[in-house]
């Protein structure tokens, strides 16, 4: 079987990876082209013990890792979108491990083959990528929640992620007062509040003033689904798993324009 038959099905995905890794489609394509030319010229070959897809990413890695990873601008590379900028802040080798597993769906041992790394190093790189993402996304959080025990649980997990809880509001009025004092970079909101007021109304008030990612955490998700749902919002149902809330926070912040430190 020729190179074309073996590699063509995987080219759309390696182009995606190259785009995400370099922050730019033209730059990414240049490395894909160089990889294919090296293969065609016999300067590189697909390791026979690897599947074609893993082998293609491996060859791409040897080409990009040899030049691109060392040449890239240190700050603010990429296509200018906020998620791209955040990706580029992750150091190259950690970014590769992160993208190979989270974006391309390789398992850790495949990522290790592609990056010529040990499984232990892959774990280290994944952890480093996460530490970098956490630092990049760290922001000030407003919690709108009238039950003190739940508010304390949410506060604890938010702090574990490296964020700062600037206020805990128990009513719509308190929430609006809180954002007037300090503009948060993320809002976590219950829906049914102490004085009968609504977290949805509180969030609408807030979003009327400025754009901020919002995650609703509620035992009554149907109220959000049936009513007029403010955007942009995420929804988590109580009782919640802490990991679910953490994953939603990371997702909401990573893709929100100008979230993170520069929340104001």
């Amino acid at each position, binding site marked *: 079987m020729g190179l074309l038959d073996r590699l063509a099905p995987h080219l759309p995905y390696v*182009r995606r990876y190259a785009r*995400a890794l370099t922050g730019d489609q033209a730059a990414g394509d240049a490395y894909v082209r160089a990889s294919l030319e090296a293969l065609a010229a016999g300067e590189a070959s697909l390791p026979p013990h690897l599947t074609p897809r893993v082998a293609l990413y491996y060859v791409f890695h040897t080409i990009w890792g040899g030049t691109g990873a060392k040449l890239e601008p240190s700050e603010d590379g990429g296509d200018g979108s906020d998620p791209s900028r955040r990706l580029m802040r992750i150091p190259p080798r950690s970014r590769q491990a992160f993208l190979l597993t989270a974006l391309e769906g390789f398992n850790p041992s495949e990522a290790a083959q592609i990056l010529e790394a040990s499984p232990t190093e892959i774990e*280290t790189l994944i952890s480093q990528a996460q530490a970098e993402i956490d630092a990049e996304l760290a922001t000030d959080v407003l919690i709108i929640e009238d039950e003190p025990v739940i508010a304390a649980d949410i506060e604890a997990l938010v702090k574990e992620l490296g964020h700062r809880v600037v206020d805990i509001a128990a009513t719509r009025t308190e929430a609006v007062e809180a954002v007037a004092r300090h503009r948060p970079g993320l809002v976590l909101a219950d829906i049914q509040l102490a004085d009968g007021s609504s977290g949805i109304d509180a969030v609408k008030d807030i979003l009327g003033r400025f754009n901020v990612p919002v995650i609703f955490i509620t035992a009554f998700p149907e109220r959000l689904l049936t009513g007029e749902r403010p955007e942009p919002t995420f929804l988590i149902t109580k009782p919640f798993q802490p*990991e679910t809330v953490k994953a939603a926070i990371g997702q909401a912040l*990573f893709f929100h324009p100008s979230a993170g430190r520069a929340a104001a």
Partner: protein
Amino acid sequence: MGLMSNQPEKTKGPDLEEARLRQQAIGVKLRQMFDDVVNEPVPDEFLDILRRHDERAGGK
């Protein structure tokens, strides 16, 4: 080739399983963001490089 492969192992940071979960949540959205790249045709130039190689190899 492993540049930076001798990183210290101590700075593990967040719990690994949790990190994977959180990274998958970002990965799902990244895939949506890059959907257009996957769905657009691969540049002919790329396929030609491979096709020319295969013709040379087959013509031996």
